[in-house]
């Protein structure tokens, strides 16, 4: 269907020469923004000024945009605090009637207060005060002196759901109440508490924040919140020290393990990175010459680190920090994950012997057998993705237990021997004949099928 419409479009195109930017067609710049839209214009006026001296492609101007500003949050966040100066009210009302708005279309008067009232009375109730704060009018919090009055004010602010006002009231309470009392009252006021936490973070009062969490018995939250700050530490040594410091925080048992692992991992990565960098630049090890490192291992996840270790440090003794076995043990990596990662790395290096060894187990009689915690069909897929030759692939295809799956994999990856042998073992002459039609006449596969079919010893089932 799409092809049809594409064809139609093309045929129409040949009828009429391109005259896209006619007067009545909206003008669109290549990047698609209507010429004249705000973001287009920002770029235009900006590029004409800031681009002087640079050579630019005329048709597709590359515009220098600003370093991206934080975008992930709305403007209505906790950080937007209350308004200070008196200002016309932000709520509006109407005295005029518009009749049916769906017909008339003009700009109505918005955001003009109907009346300024009680501007000079100073005994405002909590409700009135909060309202005035929301409207940006003059207000005074100092008259709320008793604890009870202050709390009424706070509850009223919370009721209004306006973060600006809540924070403003909290700032006043912070100034006028002892922290013990304020903390105690915040325990039962979840929303106010959240705003308070955000406010303390914003102004950097880390110490007070820790005290707050402790008094609330919400130490897990505190631990997580402090751990979060590691995201913004860029230097790896500082980050490691930061994480080390986090170890003493009261995380939940699960999270504590994760943080411990995180720290251990980065500590190791720093050692491995320093060592490998040195080895690589000195040109001592072939592996680095043959496969130069593309990126630093610092701050990579554990599985990536294991892959790296299987790639560059395979066969090292268990005692070294960088050996796969040591990493596996330290970070309690599951058999499945270990196998998959190891397999990926060794297959990438085309180290088929290592791959083979991964699956080989010996029983007490000395017989070897291939085992895998993951179905062999998946092993085949992974090997194939790493361009394993047919000779390697077919060994693993052969290990797939389900016969149908085995044949379909063998067909997908052209493992002729596997298919031919399977049909022979199934004594399925018909299928073998069909398959003969699919392979190239005179090829070795073809001859092999011929040979089997002419073997009078075999008892075919069909």
């Amino acid at each position, binding site marked *: 269907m799409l092809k*049809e419409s594409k064809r139609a479009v093309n045929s129409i195109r040949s009828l009429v020469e391109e005259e896209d930017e006619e007067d009545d067609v909206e003008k669109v710049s290549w990047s698609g923004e209507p010429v004249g839209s*705000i973001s287009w214009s920002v770029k235009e006026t900006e590029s004409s000024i800031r681009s002087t001296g640079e050579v630019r492609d005329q048709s597709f101007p590359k515009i220098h945009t600003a370093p991206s500003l934080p975008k992930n949050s709305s403007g209505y966040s906790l950080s937007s605090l209350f308004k200070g100066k008196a200002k016309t009210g932000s709520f509006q009302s109407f005295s005029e009637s518009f009749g049916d*708005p769906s017909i008339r279309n003009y700009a109505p008067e918005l955001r003009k207060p*109907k009346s300024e009232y009680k501007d000079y009375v100073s005994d405002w109730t909590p409700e009135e005060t909060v309202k005035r704060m929301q409207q940006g009018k003059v207000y005074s919090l100092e008259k709320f002196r008793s604890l009870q009055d202050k709390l009424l004010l706070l509850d009223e602010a919370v009721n209004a759901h306006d973060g600006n006002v809540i924070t403003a009231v909290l700032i006043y309470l912070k100034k006028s109440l002892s922290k013990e009392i304020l903390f105690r009252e915040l325990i039962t006021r979840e929303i106010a508490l959240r705003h308070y936490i955000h406010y303390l973070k914003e102004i950097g009062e880390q110490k007070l924040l820790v005290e707050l969490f402790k008094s609330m018995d919400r130490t897990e939250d505190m631990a997580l919140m402090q751990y979060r700050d590691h*995201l913004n530490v860029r230097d790896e040594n500082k980050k490691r020290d930061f994480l080390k410091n986090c170890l003493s925080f009261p995380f939940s048992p699960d*999270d504590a393990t994760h943080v411990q692992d995180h720290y251990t991992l980065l500590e190791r990565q720093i050692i491995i990175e320093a060592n490998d960098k040195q080895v690589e630049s000195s040109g001592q090890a072939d592996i680095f010459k043959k496969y130069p490192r593309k990126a630093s291992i610092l701050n990579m996840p554990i599985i990536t680190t294991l892959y790296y270790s299987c790639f560059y440090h395979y066969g090292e003794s268990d005692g070294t920090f960088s050996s796969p076995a040591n990493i596996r043990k330290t970070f309690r990596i599951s058999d499945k994950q270990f196998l998959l990662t190891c397999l990926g790395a060794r297959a990438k290096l085309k180290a088929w012997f290592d791959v083979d060894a991964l699956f080989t187990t010996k029983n007490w009689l000395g017989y070897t057998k291939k085992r895998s915690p993951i179905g062999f069909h998946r092993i085949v897929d992974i090997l194939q993705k790493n361009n394993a030759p047919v000779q390697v692939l077919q060994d693993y295809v052969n290990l797939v237990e389900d016969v149908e799956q085995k044949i379909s994999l063998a067909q997908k990856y052209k493992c002729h021997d596997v298919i031919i042998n399977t049909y022979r073992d199934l004594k399925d002459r018909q299928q073998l004949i069909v398959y003969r039609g699919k392979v190239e006449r005179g090829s070795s596969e073809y001859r092999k099928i011929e040979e089997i079919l002419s073997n009078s010893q075999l008892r075919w089932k069909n």
Partner: protein
Amino acid sequence: MSAHLSYGRVNLNILREAARKELREFLDKCAGSKAIVWDEYLTGPFGLIAQYSLLKEHEVEKMFTLKGGRLPAADVKNIIFFVRPRLELMDIIAENVISEDKMLSPRDFHILFVPRRSMLCEQRLKEQGVLGSFINIDEYILDLIPYDGDLLSMESEGAFRECYLESDQTSLYHTAKGLMTLQALYGTIPQIFGKGECARHVANMMLRMKREFAGSQTQILPVFDSLLLLDRNIDLLTPLATQLTYEGLIDEVYGITNGYAKLPPEKFAAQKKQGEVGKDLPTEPKKMQLNSAEELYAEIRDKNFNAIGAALSKKAKIISAAFEERHNAKTVGEIKQFVSQLPHMQAARSSLANHTSIAELIKDITTSEAFFDNLTVEQEFMTGVDTDKVNTYIEDCIAQKDPLIKILRLVCMQSVCNNGLKQKILDYYKREILQTYGYEHMLTLNNLEKTGLLKPQTSTRNNYPTIRKTLKLWMEDANEQNPNDISYVYSGYAPLSIRLTQVLARPGWRSIEEVLKMLPGPHFEERQQLPAGLHKKRQQGENRTTLVFFLGGVTYAEVAALRFLSQMEDGGTEYIIATTKLINGTSWIKSLMDRPEAP
């Protein structure tokens, strides 16, 4: 530019005009030539309100994006900063102001805070010693922005996170205020329904604000018959599922931001003039505006993607036929008539070409094995298959290091469809994720748990199957070509949020009390008194108009489902949709992730 806003049941252009008027008034406060320095985030939302031409008419000669260092030279009298109230932006502004060259003729500085001014920000400017440099400090309240003829958005990305993770309900306050503005323009809404904690708060605030302004009733005949407020957290499932409408898929694959999608340029290069063949292909993405102003797009955007091919080819035939008409044009009059239609036909043709290209791009994805496998697992979860076991597909995806957000969407979906995961399974997924993607993601996992998207099973009873059956969330025989039920938007899954909306209209929520109790938060109904004489006399067979407000975001597929209900012949209700932000599973999960701040 905005005509498409007035075609709907409710003329949303009135709202846009009101916002434009306020903007003009502010600009006129700063007399003389001006340059605007933009917080880049704001240009998108502002683009829905105004074009550069409006600013130009009010002597805006230059526009820059906000960045540190010295402001570019511009021979203007005023420099106006359009910014969100954020401390880090204040530091940049201060830097700009301090590095201003004193030798040049002095320029006047102004700040316009969007959506609100903030004392803390002003304090920061004071600390930096620049507060005195500003002549005007003002705010521009941009609550509800008309997004399309039947769609309003606050374009507030963080709303879900703030409400459900950080317990910051400021965005609810803005929602209530936006709804008051709306009532000021379109009349008091007589009935308010709602479900969820946040919905309850918003309704309370509205009623309270109304009481406070009791003396100044608007004398406008109500345009809306009712308002339905829905919390996003009563339906966590829908946004996690892959949207299967045309518009939904464009959003899933390329992302639609402030009404624009950025598409890979290769497919569109062929449309350039033929003489330019030798030229290098453009590397910049093609940016396309997507709204109902484009006739073809309005027609096809809400269709299931599997019906798009047929729709486009039908359109192609119509357009071809129209072009063929030229052979029949014999008389001068006929030729003249044909020529007069050419511009419109050319626009239609170029629109068809664009959408054929987009459809091809998307088809490459929807026909891929990966897409199919992912969808299969989603549908298994939604129908309740094996939601209590470790899913091997998810396991494989982790092993292949597929994008983390994809994994999180699936794991959360499994958790939601199973009313929580067994502790052992949850721990297993968490370990795999942390080991493969990095330990720092424990913060994100914690966030997902706090919002209920991911949780350990607390009771053995899984009530999702009951909800699914009662609300008919899964329809076996969803008709993608000629739909007869909203489930077509997810090829079988009927979004829970929209089912609630549908049932409310008919037969009413009383019929599903049991299910409502299983979903979080209260459900309620309120009435607002209308001034005498404003009671609407409904004509026989006249449709009701309901405003549905999604607190915490809505997907394009849900919007499509509501449009489908509006268009049903015997539906009886037309819907206008409002939300804090248009979301999809990816943008939603992203908003809940903790990541390093941009350097």
